């Protein structure tokens, strides 16, 4: 089956999903406020920097924002690493870390 446009109209998509995503934007704003209000270091945490870069993609007017956000948050190196440092993932790449990208 070939790709198809959404059956819903643009207006219907906004009507259906606007409040859900309005809330998510406010959550991001409140998260950044919470980091600002908190004590100690971490203001320059790479994950916060990455999140702010993602926000710029949202308003750049170009298509495929979801794909581009995911790529921005991805490790673009090509060689396997020597040993796993942990089992989990942080959700962004520390561009300041050795070997990143």
């Amino acid at each position, binding site marked *: 089956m070939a790709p198809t446009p959404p059956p819903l109209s643009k207006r219907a998509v906004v009507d259906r999903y606007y409040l859900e995503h309005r809330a998510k934007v406010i959550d991001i704003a409140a998260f950044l406020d919470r980091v600002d209000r908190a004590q100690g270091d971490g203001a320059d945490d790479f994950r916060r920097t990455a999140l702010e870069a993602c926000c710029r993609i949202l308003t750049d007017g170009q298509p495929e924002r979801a794909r581009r956000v995911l790529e921005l948050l991805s490790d673009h190196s090509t060689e396997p690493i020597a040993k796993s*440092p942990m089992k989990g993932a942080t959700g962004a790449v520390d561009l300041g870390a050795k070997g990143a990208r």
Partner: protein
Amino acid sequence: MYIDPHVHMVSRTTDDYQRMALAGCVAITEPAFWAGYDRSTPQGFFDYFRQLTDFEPKRAAQYGIRHHTWLCINPKEAEDPVFAREVIALIPQFLKCENVLGIGEIGLNKNSRNELEILDAHLALAAEHGLMVLVHTPHLEDKLKGTRLIMDAIRNHSRLDPGRVLIDHVEEHTVRPVLDRGFWAGMTLYPDTKCTPQRAVDIFEMHGTERLWINSAGDWGQSDPLAVPKAQIEMKSRGHTLESVRKVSFDNPLKFLSQSGRFRIA
């Protein structure tokens, strides 16, 4: 009616089987995975494989759900290659079990050399026995790189047909490369990480419904064993046809999994 082709029922309660059955689930496949801690002995995996091939099918059958499984040592426990190879050596004796579809969920976690070595050992086992493969791709920032490394590793095994390999947990940045190389792709509906039902339906609209399926990957973490029927509702509420809904949640998994010769619906 639907199939959940990736769900870790050993971590779920019997109530979940009942709720899934009430929502229309007729069959599942359960890949071997990480228990949240590293097993201390290969014998721990032997018992886990017994659970997947003997106990769990009986528990599912109580609710009219046909249970199938995939066997492996998960990439999260592949950093010790000696240990991992001992576990892999246990797998052939379970291949005669009628609910075993193939090798899975193998793949990469942090994209390390040891993980790649053990991925290759699993692929060799699958090629040797003519088995199908279910692949786990890494989480979050490691997914793009890991997906590329995995596809290259599979390509090194010429006896493995990409049409009998499903690469799971694809998102917007990995779905196209996976499909373009002839593999099947799975979208996992998972809170916070992976896809929401809304994004999964977006991906169907952008990339079509050929060689794509959806699954819950319900496990011991925050997850939803009813994620597939929720995605069905999302599709229907957007105006997609019942035929399309059935294709991604039933026909596609049935088509892929039937290649094993062992997949049955209840």
